[in-house]
């Protein structure tokens, strides 16, 4: 039976090669652990936007779950809830919830753990970056949640469906601007209103639908900002705004939805420029260095710490298409593809719109999936 399973999984891997093949990169064998997270009764994950480990191997999961709610009454609508942050230990045992009912928890986008084991949450809807210390107390806030949601006067047919796609999709030209415009132009917006016109990349310390956060060795903070405002913002370790680069566009140094960030040991900044189907590399001051265009539309990105650094990149499938893409690439830091694994699907070892990769060690990954409401713990056998 075991042998049969082995043969079967080999066959599945082989099938994966054919369907996911893009650049002839070698396939990396891998396993997905059974039930990596054990949830208490009546606690559910929804869309897993972020999964990240700390130095002890604890796993933090930031998930879109519960009911995103708008309170009715008057001409303003107040938005609450819709996401939760859970902590598990390295065996997958549930430890606790952090930030229950937090003002900034609306639509989960990412969670990352810094070298001091602080837990950083990126919320796409409140447009906030929230830093918790290891105890779970709020230490630092970047950005500000809009005070209220604008009530639209009317919408053309299909607007709802356009919104239904969302996910890790690059917004079609203009669509992202419309959504960002809710914050950018809305008189009701108390926070997002100050970020300038959508896509203009205005140098500012507030965000429009940010997507990711990373740090360099000195503790400087980099924020990918994001769906609404296509730029990278840099803050010092105390949260003071330093600078900003990029705007919406296709040139070097421009972005079309920067959706993921990673910083290597030398302080180079890798940006998953999803809508432009490339990874751009900058120095810590935002000077363009190089770009990699051989790994599809990167939605999630990770560089393991330690002496030998590589780059994991997910060419995530959009939620409405399970029949293409979905594979994860392993590259070296010069952009050479070392291998790839996985494909879009709902089974174990398949991926449904990966939004997050954690790679604390090179061959042990956690991936968070929007489409499959789950976290998979992957062991690579390169």
């Amino acid at each position, binding site marked *: 039976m075991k042998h049969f399973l082995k043969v079967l999984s080999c066959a599945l891997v082989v099938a994966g090669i054919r369907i996911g093949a893009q650049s002839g990169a070698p396939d990396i064998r891998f396993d997905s652990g059974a039930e990596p997270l054990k*949830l208490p*009764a*009546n606690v*559910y*994950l*929804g*869309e897993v936007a972020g999964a990240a480990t700390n130095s002890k191997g604890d796993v933090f999961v930031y*998930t*879109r*779950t*519960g*009911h*995103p709610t*708008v309170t009715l009454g008057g001409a303003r*609508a107040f*938005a609450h809830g*819709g996401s939760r942050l859970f902590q598990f230990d390295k065996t997958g045992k549930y430890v606790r919830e952090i930030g229950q009912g937090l003002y900034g928890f*609306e*639509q989960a986008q990412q969670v990352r753990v810094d070298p001091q084991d602080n837990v950083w949450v990126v919320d*796409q*809807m409140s447009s906030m970056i929230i830093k918790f210390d290891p105890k779970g107390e709020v230490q630092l806030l970047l950005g500000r949640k809009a005070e209220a*949601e*604008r*009530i*639209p*006067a*009317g*919408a*053309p*047919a*299909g*607007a*709802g*469906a*356009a*919104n*239904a*796609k*969302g*996910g890790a999709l690059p917004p079609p030209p203009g669509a992202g601007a419309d*959504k960002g415009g*809710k914050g950018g132009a809305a008189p009701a917006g108390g926070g997002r209103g100050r970020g300038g016109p959508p896509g203009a990349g205005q140098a500012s310390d507030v965000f429009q*639908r940010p997507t990711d956060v990373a740090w360099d060795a000195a503790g400087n903070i980099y924020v990918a900002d994001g*769906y609404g405002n296509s730029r990278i913002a840099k803050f010092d370790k105390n949260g003071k705004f330093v600078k900003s680069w990029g705007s919406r566009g296709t040139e070097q140094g421009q972005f079309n939805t920067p959706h993921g960030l990673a910083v290597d040991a030398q302080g180079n900044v890798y940006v998953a420029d999803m809508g432009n189907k490339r990874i751009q590399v900058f120095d810590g001051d935002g000077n363009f260095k190089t770009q990699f265009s051989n790994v599809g539309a990167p939605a999630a990105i990770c560089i393991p710490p330690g002496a030998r650094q590589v780059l994991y990149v997910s060419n995530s499938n959009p*939620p*409405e*298409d*399970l*029949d293409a893409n979905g594979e994860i690439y392993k590259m070296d830091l010069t952009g050479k593809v070392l291998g790839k694994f996985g494909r879009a*699907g*709902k*089974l174990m070892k398949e991926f449904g719109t990966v939004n997050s990769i954690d790679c604390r060690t090179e061959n042990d990954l956690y991936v968070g999936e*929007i*489409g*499959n*409401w789950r976290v998979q713990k992957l062991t690579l056998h390169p």
Partner: protein
Amino acid sequence: MQRSLASVAVVILSAVPVFAQAKAKAQNVPEIPYESVPNFLKLPTGMYLGEAVAVATNSKGHLFVYHRSGNTRLFEFDEKGNYVREIGEGLYGFEFAHSVRVDPQDNIWAVDEGTNMVIKFNPAGKVVMVLGHRPEAVGGPLATPTGPAPPAEKYLLGRPTDVGWDPQGNIFISDGYVNHRVVKYDKDGRFLKQVGSEKTGTEPGQFNTPHGIAVDLKGNVYVADRGNNRLQVFDNNLVPKAVYDNIGTSWTVCVSPGPHQYLFSSNSNPNGNTPGSWDNTGEIYKMELDGTIIGKFGHAAKTLGGFQVVHMMDCRNPNEIIVGEIESWRVQKLLLKAK
């Protein structure tokens, strides 16, 4: 051609209210005597059902009720109607209940037309698969779209209504209020085929709000084509086979298991219809799979034993029908009596 024009006219005439009921064309249908079990569901004090849109039993006889309460909720009861537990409290996919079904392996499938999702729970109540994608909150409040629906996507659903499976485990979803189609996925959730589209239509293979679905042991697919006042039958590849249009407005369908399968369809009677509709709608038909009517039971009424409005049926035992009523916030267990 004349006939199809006439049916177009009927559709137009019956367009106000949107799903006006139709008196069944079938005449002299025998009445099947039945009784409604009193106090069937026993809810703990302080718990309430809302619109009881969805009911389904598992192989042990446990009953799942997916209903529109303060929040949409999924309750489990034992075979005697005692409350057992809640499943999926606070689930991201629970916003506006529409259907619950239990597959042959006792997995529980909830269809939510508020989040555009179909959620599969294993018997322990853990989510093991989701289909569709909830529209993201980051868009904020959106005006309700009007006009034609955008093209239907393979993996997105537009207010889906129901789910069924063939013996191979392929998944059939009626989809729904925005799209007007039936989608077939394989057991792993991969798109295979659809019939119908985002557009309404009256031809065979077109729908106007496919509102319920059931699959028989041969893999044939039965669809309650509510807005067209008919039930459509397809083969396993979603090729049209038959239309049953003599049983009023087919709101919901159920196919019983076992060697001799029966088909049930409800000509439900909602509020908002013209006076008099209570007198000639609200009944449930029991049929052979080929459309031969065996008999009917029930009638529109708010009192126990009457229906207001049957939104879903469970027919695991074809002589014990459990109905969920959307407008009486109630679940009834009906014992059909042999004549």
